């Protein structure tokens, strides 16, 4: 039964000649999240892909725990952990071609790192030494976006512009379940569908928008169902099954690149850690729920499937963990060095050319810094 066939569905008297724009049925997601690992189809996944996914999952988990530790040590102002969601992050980071663009939110640092960003540069926003630590063009990763869902129209505009220029570039935009309530989510999906833009939207449904559960966020049967209203396919996938997320995203990317327009993918996953270090997750969810999701861990799922196919042994696990430890050690070492900040940089890049007002204010700060330096000199 399609949405339009449901009892009580709104059916206005159609004007003469009115026809539904599309048959809604092919746009609707499957009732159950799509899974690969643990199914017969897992036998067909390329061993190379599984090995890459595994290595990045293990490194990603370690990156998350290390960054969380750095917040406790005061080295990061905040870190929104993606522990438990690494499958989504890794798949998003690996699925694109070099020329494609990734549009991450503040929780998607790991996807940016998997795509090739220097792990320290990716943390600049969260350390607080600048608002973004990298040139977005280098790896085609937009700045981590703090306001919810506002990066989604950017992805649509970029993909649209690329297509107008004749480039077969795809944009992949990441958003959380809470972000789907924002107006920009709606406007971005609507624009993407109307413009037939080569965009893929990945909703990481991790259960909570800070403390508000999905049931209080939406009355839709699933977030993927929202796709039908825009006229694009919706796909529901097990967000902890790295192979399934990768496959569904890869298919959506292929479709977009081939001129098939946008896709909305909902990955059902869970945020194991609190929203950030400033959040007390015990106030809104029981430990038993967290434990149930720990049992559905993306790394464990993948390791089990790979061991079944003799693609992974203890040695392989140890090698991945060693790589992860090297990543963490490098991160610790470099993050324990205080960043060198030039206060005069405050006046850079506000405008292409400094206004006279900013020139005056820069001179004021320069004088204050000189006076501070002179005072410090006298004190020696």
């Amino acid at each position, binding site marked *: 039964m399609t949405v339009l066939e449901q009892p009580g569905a709104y059916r206005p008297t159609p004007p003469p000649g009115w026809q539904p724009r599309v048959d809604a049925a092919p746009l609707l997601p499957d009732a159950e999240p799509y899974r690969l690992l643990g199914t017969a189809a897992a036998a067909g996944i390329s061993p190379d892909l599984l090995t890459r996914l595994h290595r990045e999952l293990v490194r990603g988990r370690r990156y998350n725990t290390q960054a969380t530790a750095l917040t406790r040590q005061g080295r990061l102002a905040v870190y929104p952990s993606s522990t438990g969601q690494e499958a989504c992050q890794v798949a998003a980071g690996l699925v694109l071609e070099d020329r494609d663009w990734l549009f991450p939110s503040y929780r998607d640092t790991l996807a940016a790192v998997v795509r090739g960003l220097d792990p320290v540069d990716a943390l600049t926003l969260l350390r607080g030494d600048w608002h973004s630590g990298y040139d977005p063009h280098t790896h085609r990763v937009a700045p981590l976006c703090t306001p919810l869902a506002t990066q989604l129209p*950017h992805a649509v505009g970029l993909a649209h512009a690329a297509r*107008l220029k004749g480039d077969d570039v795809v944009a992949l935009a990441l958003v959380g379940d809470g972000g789907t309530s924002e107006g920009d989510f709606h406007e971005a999906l609507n624009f993407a569908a109307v413009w037939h833009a080569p965009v893929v939207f990945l909703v990481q449904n991790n259960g909570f928008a800070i403390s508000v559960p999905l049931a209080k966020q939406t009355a839709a049967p699933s977030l993927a169902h929202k796709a039908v209203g825009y006229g694009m396919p919706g796909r529901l996938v097990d967000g902890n099954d790295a192979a399934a997320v990768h496959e569904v995203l890869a298919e959506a990317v292929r479709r977009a690149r081939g001129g098939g327009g946008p896709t909305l993918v909902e990955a059902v996953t869970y945020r194991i850690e609190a929203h950030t270090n400033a959040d007390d997750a015990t106030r809104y969810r029981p430990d038993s729920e967290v434990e149930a999701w720990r049992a559905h861990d993306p790394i464990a799922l993948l390791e089990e499937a790979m061991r079944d196919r003799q693609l992974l042994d203890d040695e392989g696990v140890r090698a991945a963990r060693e790589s992860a430890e090297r990543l963490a050690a490098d991160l610790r070492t470099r993050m324990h060095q205080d960043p060198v900040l030039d206060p005069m940089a405050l006046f850079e890049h*506000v405008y292409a050319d400094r206004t006279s007002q900013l020139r005056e204010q820069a001179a004021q700060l320069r004088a204050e810094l000189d006076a501070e330096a002179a005072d410090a000199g006298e004190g020696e």
Partner: protein
Amino acid sequence: MTTAVGAETARKPATMAQALGRALRDAMAADPSVHVLGEDVGTLGGVFRITDGLAEEFGEDRCTDTPLAEAGILGTAVGMAMYGLRPVVEMQFDAFAYPSFEQLISHVSRMRNRTRGAMPMPITVRVPYGGGIGGVEHHSDSSEIYYMATPGLQVVAPATVADAYGLLRAAIASDDPVIFLEPKRLYWSKADWSADAPEQVPPIGRAVVRGPGSGGRRSATLISYGPSVPVCLEAAEAARAEGWDLEVVDLRSLVPFDDETVCASVRRTGRAVVVHESTGFGGPGGEIAARVTERCFHHLEAPVLRVAGFDIPYPPPMLERHHLPGVDRVLDAVARLQWESEWTEGSAV
């Protein structure tokens, strides 16, 4: 910037609306990365017909009718700018732009700064603004203070046909985002102007003195922009009969602000009145008066006065003439500038 060519080019009356349309057309012809997008800009040519003919001439990919969603229009423009295009966005009316404020304030204005210059936002946001056309609610707001208060945005408002063309070309050519405030009630104002030989217009950030005074004893500077400039020019003409010599400074650009031209004029005249339609409390006039006072205090013969719209939501059209600063209200303020000789304690300010 297009420069004047051919002295024989015929100059004939043109409206500001025509000059704006011509600026868009010329900018699109000169630079294939310029794209116009907004609600109704394509087939209809815009509700004010500013974009008339652009979709026909450049195709719907260059002049695009978008879904009706201002945040989406500006948000997609951000992505287009990220990929090297120069979007020119139309917000159909001033108050219709409000849904796009998050994109404007959180992204458009900051992207250059956030990315240390790697991602400039060469976006022009055209906002038909201000009152005086009998528009119903949400069609006559003067929102400039919201834009002015946001670092990273340039804010310009033309008052003449030549400036409308020149400033819009400059805005589209600018590598920074520009809020381009189009005074709706001047859309049909005419001037002798030639699209084939547009006048040289000073760059964004420069004010101009219109109708310079001679700096006599009873002199003052009227500081204004956009739709209030013609009001000030008319007031200056009327005041001449009263023995006042008024200089009108047309700011043209609120951000960057031209302290130099404004202060040079006030130092010459010794008195200043700021005139605008938007509200007085927390409005642009307060900022301008403070800047002038800080820089010209010893030259001032009287406090800097403000003539602004009342501090009310924009009134219904049948009452707007009581709200909008007109010539008489400007002249009343000028009369109050005779601080030493004629002003007395207890007079109503």
